[in-house]
């Protein structure tokens, strides 16, 4: 049930502090657009941010810094093997 592909926010309706505003966002990935709710997202997204979606709700706004760290850690782990060329 977990859709792992993060989608980009291209439109936001409603606001963070107005609970009656039915907060939604239009998100896009690979040309596919979807409307999602923002009721439960951990951080209110800005336009252009990427969010993780589950059953019509954004559950997490990705932080570019965290994602870069994540990628760097993967690259470093990959580089270990690359470097010494040893095989077990």
């Amino acid at each position, binding site marked *: *049930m*977990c859709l*792992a*592909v*993060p989608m980009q926010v291209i439109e936001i309706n409603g606001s963070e502090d107005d609970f*009656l505003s*039915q907060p939604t966002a239009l998100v896009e*990935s690979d040309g596919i657009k979807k409307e999602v*709710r923002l*009721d*439960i*997202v*951990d951080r209110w997204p800005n336009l252009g941010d*990427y969010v*993780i979606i*589950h*059953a*019509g*709700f954004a*559950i*997490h706004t*990705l*932080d*570019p810094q*965290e*994602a*870069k*760290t*994540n*990628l760097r*850690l*993967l*690259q470093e*782990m*990959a*580089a*270990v*093997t*690359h470097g010494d060329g*040893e*095989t*077990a």
Partner: protein
Amino acid sequence: MKYLSEFRDSALTKPLVAELQRFPARPIRIMEICGTHTMAIFHHGLRSILPEGLQLISGPGCPVCVTAAGHIDAFVDIAQQDKVRVAIFGDLMRVPGSNGSLSQAAAHGAQVEMVYSPMDALELAEKHPGELIVFLSVGFETTTPGVAATILEANRRETSNFAVYSTHKVIPPPLELLLADPDLELNGLLCPGHVSTIIGAQAYQTVADKYQLPCVVAGFEPADILRALIMLLRQIHEERYEVENGYNRAVTWQGNQRACALVDKVFIPEDSPWRGMGILPGSGLAIRETYSQFDASKRLDITMQDIAEPKGCLCGEILCGKFAPPDCPLFAKACTPANPIGPCMVSSEGTCAAYFRYGEK
């Protein structure tokens, strides 16, 4: 940063495979808790590149699979009631209960609609004012906050013909149960991705401490899973047992507290039945009294019966890691995705469905 192509780059995954294969052969058993991980591991062929001796065991993290037979029967009962239309996630449609499945009920006139989101079920209530719309709700920590938000929205809109039948569950109790079983002999846990987005990596600390078990949270891309396996193997070889987060971009230590607060506002823990595991204390979530007008179990006065699981089906044991699908005599013979006997063959995250689809016998 697109958060996708970067993580799928083969320049990244290839050396990770090599790194994983450098670990010396040794019998190691790692459980992947989450059904989405089970599927991703099969889909990307990761089982074929594991170092010798490393065994991956599927756990209790497929929500449809762990739903007890009694709950499936309750779903069918609700669907058959007069002036009721049920809304479900598609995965539930063909799960057999003792009185058939929802799809068979639909063939006999019950109103069953597949939805993508609980909010779509609420919209159905506006479309069909003469009917009671019941969302038959299954799912773990990732799904529950959205259902809580939908109930709050229904409350705000004062929608009177919408209710939820909650069979929601939380993942730590079955883990405790499984790990207390010495026969399982697990050496590490590959912890779920988006469940952890909600509850945080901290949720596994108790288990890591109590059972001295390495726990690593993993994302769903091949590189993510490879990295998490390497982190687990490093811990195992260095005899450490810590909670580590291999999915930093989507998971924090504390989790999504806004979502957790909403769940807490609408739901209250209750004892819940799990397929193959019996009733686990505090493992389910019921709708709080304040929102009882949205609680289908109260509105329709549903009591769940204790129903035996399908004869010969080993789903319960498979969910506990005791057997693999090929151990079931019905697997790929009497039981196939076209003619499923248990939920593990129906759900897109079910272990039997994964073995069948990817041809592992």
